[in-house]
């Protein structure tokens, strides 16, 4: 329940409405503004992009609108395009035994493949080349971990189409294992 009455507010408002600046103050203020207006340079007709952005950023609604427009028209198509261009497919390798452990690895193929079938064809061709020993193998790194010697290779396969695919492959062998438990671990296509 309001405690202040309407008459009191009207009295205060009347006090404000009775405020009158002195004629000298008005004259001087007018003179000051007149000087500024007369000396103002001609307005540029070209729009300034910085000014436009300043105006946009001043208002919260415009800020949100600008952010939404940027997201919808730039970021979404870009991300959609990126997803469309580079697709990754995974293929399960045959289980292998390293130092008494059975290891199941997956080979990933990333590239501009239309669908999984196309990627599968490339994967099968790589496997055929691997079985035929038609590849170039380069040792990249070798290290020992938990009693197992690991080797990382870069293996280059030249497909029938002439396309060269480089695959990271790894192999492991137990230090004390004389059975030469060896495996290829395709990791990634470059």
């Amino acid at each position: 329940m309001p405690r202040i009455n309407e008459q009191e507010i009207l009295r205060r408002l009347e006090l404000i409405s009775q405020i009158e600046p002195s004629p000298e103050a008005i004259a001087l203020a007018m003179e000051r503004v007149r000087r500024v207006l007369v000396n103002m340079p001609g307005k540029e007709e070209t729009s300034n992009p910085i000014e436009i952005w300043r105006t946009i950023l001043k208002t919260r609604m415009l800020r949100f609108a600008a952010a939404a427009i940027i997201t919808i028209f730039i970021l979404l198509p870009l991300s959609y395009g990126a997803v469309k261009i580079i697709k990754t497919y995974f293929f399960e390798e045959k289980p292998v035994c390293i130092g008494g452990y059975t290891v199941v690895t997956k080979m990933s193929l990333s590239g501009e493949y239309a669908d999984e079938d196309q990627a599968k064809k490339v994967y099968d061709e790589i496997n055929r080349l691997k079985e035929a020993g038609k590849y170039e193998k380069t040792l990249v790194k070798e290290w020992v971990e938990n009693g197992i010697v690991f080797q990382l290779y870069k293996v280059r396969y030249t497909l029938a189409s002439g396309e060269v695919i480089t695959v990271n492959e790894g192999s492991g062998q137990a230090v004390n294992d004389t059975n030469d438990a060896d495996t290829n671990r395709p990791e990634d296509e470059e």
Partner: protein
Amino acid sequence: MQGGLQRLLELFEHSGPSLYTLLMRLVLREDVAEELMQELFVKLANFKGLDKVKNLAAYAHRTAVNLAFDWRKARDKDPCRLDDAPEPVSGFISPLGKLSLNEEIEDVLCAISQLRGASREAFVMRYIQQQPYEYIAGEMGKTPHQVRALCFKALMHIRYLLSDKELRYSKKGGHNAEN
């Protein structure tokens, strides 16, 4: 653009004193009113759509009110910016010095600053400038009845805000408790 500037100069000569008076009533300081008056006309002169404004006087009035209340808000947020206060060209000792200290008036102006849009515009024209409802309606493109309704609602809102403030003061045990 020349046509727009010409209109602005005519407006300045015709309505300059009344706009200055309005600014003075809203900010209660001659130096600030002078500064805001300059800012107002510089803003209008730089406004690209000036030629398209049909009622330039009403537009200038609205801009002046917004500038004045923006200044009040900025001052309330940062009351210690004494260095930023411009040196008045007029150099007069303000006869409003005592008046500006009058907390009752300050309270009312603070409450008005919390009104928004058309409501504030109508209220200022009616109660600060003492304009008749018919004139305000013409300036705002509304009917006198609508303006009356706007002013009544604004007055009720101000009454509520002031009562709320007084209530808080009394709960804290004195008028100066909050200060």
